């Protein structure tokens, strides 16, 4: 999918020079990054130049003075040059550098973020784009109706069938979607395109990374965050959605499709660089996942406090008219230069372990993205239902050397509760999920949580069931089950003489 020979081009409005940003320094910085950079005179007032200058670019970054809100108009010119709407970014340099103590450094960091994000573009398919008509601001005339309004485009997720575990019972995306845009039918996840708002909640929730939304893929967001930490020189990280203007001052804006798409891993990696804020677009936001984001922020705060740190986490910031006001964060030491994945099974655990280091910590929290499956060996019959329904493979089942083993790997558990739902012995407490973080369990790796002898068919030697399963059945069915024929012969051999 991703093309290593992709041409990334940056068009830089020359007028940024008047705002105190030396164009020559920006150009040489961009050349060091190995991208094609062009300066365009008066690009902001005359954006139609983009249609000419963007020709031949696979990825286009337009560095303007202030024009972030006109991204749609600029995108239209880029589309005319053959640039996909998903391969287009606007960086309003003068706006984001306002109020920053070292504006040139911030401008360079912002451009590096856009370049790395562009390079992480995973490629798109026709289904990933959905046109939408511009909302009517006022009553329209008949003449206006019969003419084409401009169309704009949003990315829309598609399901990667080979990775999707819906056939095994995984419904993470269906349960996460606040708009009921995803449905499961016959083990296949279907997207109702008209209901999807491109919030990206499903993309970040899928443990298999089976939902693909180019433009907002976890890999692109991760690349931008990594660049913000590497080049941001300890500035705060503000996660914002497209409805919110990138903040000025010492904040680096990392763009996410919606506040609800900011994972715990992303927050924790960002906190290693300094302060963190998440913008919430309030009235415009349709996702309704405010509580989820607040719980995640609270979990990160609790985790860091338990580690004796003093995190600078700004409570969820509501936007007013598309703008957020952020306090000046304390500039911290330069953040890490490389970070782990921010989505998918194991991502949150990796972030937590990299933060906690050698500390032993147990923290129960409603906003924790992880859990621990607690198996009661006396009630568990090792039927394997939980392992087959686990969407991440945290629970595993194996038969070897005449024994059955149920194992658990805590770093992969997302506390979805699928195992509890599928357990036929759940009422006897065979399995429960504890939501929280236990670093000792996380470091243990995969360990056996239940094991039992396998009973083999007395006739052919084929495995019948575990001894506990047979004993449980005997307990349930009494004398009816106690016949040796039922308990000690496999399905194929039943009815045949011993």
């Amino acid at each position: 999918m991703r093309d290593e020979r992709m041409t990334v081009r940056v068009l830089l409005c020359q007028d940024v020079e008047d705002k105190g940003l030396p164009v020559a320094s920006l150009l040489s910085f961009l050349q060091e990054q190995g991208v094609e950079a062009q300066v365009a005179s008066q690009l902001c007032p005359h954006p139609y130049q983009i249609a000419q200058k963007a020709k031949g670019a696979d990825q286009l970054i337009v560095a303007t003075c202030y024009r972030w809100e006109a991204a749609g108009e600029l995108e239209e010119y880029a589309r005319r040059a053959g640039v996909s709407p998903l391969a287009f970014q606007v960086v309003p340099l003068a706006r984001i550098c306002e109020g920053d103590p070292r504006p040139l450094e911030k401008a360079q960091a912002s451009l590096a973020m856009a370049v790395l994000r562009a390079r992480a573009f995973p490629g798109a398919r026709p289904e990933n784009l959905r046109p939408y008509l511009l909302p009517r601001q006022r009553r329209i005339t008949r003449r206006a109706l019969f003419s084409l309004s401009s169309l704009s485009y949003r990315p829309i997720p598609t399901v990667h069938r080979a990775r999707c575990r819906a056939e095994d019972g995984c419904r993470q995306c269906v349960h996460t979607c606040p708009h009921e845009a995803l449905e499961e039918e016959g083990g296949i996840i279907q997207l109702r395109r008209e209901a999807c708002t491109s919030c990206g909640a499903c993309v970040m929730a899928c443990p298999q990374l089976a939902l693909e939304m180019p433009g907002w893929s976890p890999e692109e967001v991760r690349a931008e965050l990594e660049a913000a930490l590497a080049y941001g020189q300890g500035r705060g990280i503000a996660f914002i959605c497209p409805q919110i203007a990138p903040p000025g001052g010492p904040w680096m804006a990392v763009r996410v499709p919606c506040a609800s798409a900011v994972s715990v891993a992303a927050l924790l990696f960002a906190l290693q660089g300094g302060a963190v804020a998440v913008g919430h677009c309030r009235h415009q936001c349709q996702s309704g996942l405010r509580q989820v984001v607040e719980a995640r922020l609270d979990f990160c705060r609790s985790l860091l406090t338990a580690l004796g740190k003093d995190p600078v986490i700004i409570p969820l910031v509501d936007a007013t008219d598309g703008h957020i006001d952020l306090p000046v964060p304390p500039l911290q030491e330069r953040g890490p230069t490389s970070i782990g994945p921010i989505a998918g099974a194991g991502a949150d655990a990796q972030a937590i372990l990299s933060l906690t280091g050698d500390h032993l910590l147990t923290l129960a929290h409603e906003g924790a993205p992880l859990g621990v499956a607690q198996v009661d060996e006396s009630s568990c019959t090792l039927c394997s239902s939980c392992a087959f329904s686990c969407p991440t493979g945290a629970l595993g089942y194996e038969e070897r050397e005449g024994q059955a083993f149920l194992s658990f790997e805590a770093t992969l558990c997302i506390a979805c509760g699928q195992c509890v739902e599928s357990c036929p012995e759940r009422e006897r407490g065979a399995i429960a999920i504890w939501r929280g973080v236990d670093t000792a369990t996380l470091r243990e790796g995969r360990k056996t949580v239940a094991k039992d002898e396998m009973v083999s068919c007395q006739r052919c030697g084929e495995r019948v069931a575990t001894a506990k399963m047979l004993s449980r059945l005997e307990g349930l069915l009494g004398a009816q089950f106690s016949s040796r024929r039922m308990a000690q012969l496999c399905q194929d051999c039943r009815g045949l003489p011993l």
Partner: protein
Amino acid sequence: MSFGPRGEVKSRALGSWGRAARFRQGIYRLLASSFLPPQKERWQQMQEAAKSLRRQDKWARDLPFYMPWREFSASLGQKEPLSLEDYNRLLGPGGDAPPWESSYLGPILLAQAEVVADLQQAYLRAGLHPTFPHGPDHISVELEFMSYLCGQEAEAWERGDTREVRRQLKREGKFLGGHLCRWLPAFVRRLEGAAAPPVLVKGAYAAWALTCHDYDLARLLDAELAFAPTIDEG
């Protein structure tokens, strides 16, 4: 004029929806022809048609299906875009990329029969009684049907008959969602995997891009026209 964060409000009108529908009618017809057995005379006609459509495609240049369409029309300009041998290898009976919708539905005959019956119903409901030398679920027949629906839509726009426009848009959306949009992705993958000549791969890709776009557009326009009674005269 104000702009939203993604530039939602823009004043430039691209042209009339009627003209857009006529243009789409033309592309669908051209695409339909490109999956028929190659004939020298037909290729020449197609090249002429592509040239004519290219002259009218300026309005669509910022739409996502524009580049795939342009690449497809450029591939038509080759001297011999498709040989009969290649056609039979790929699109003939037992070929590597069968051009029939029912070939992509799995082995259950009943499901295949249901699709064929549904297609025939759709053609009949639109007032057509076509004969099918290649079968009702052949890609050319389905694309030609879309061309017909776009033609009907264009006529309705030209008459200013919004009720009829909505009826046609609903038909288009239903047909695309129920048929072409479902199996074209798999068809494109088969062609790509079978090292098909560019005219087929680019044609199938252009059809995929156009149908995806049209499916959403038909729904959007239908929803927009639902407000028609409150429109100011003027």
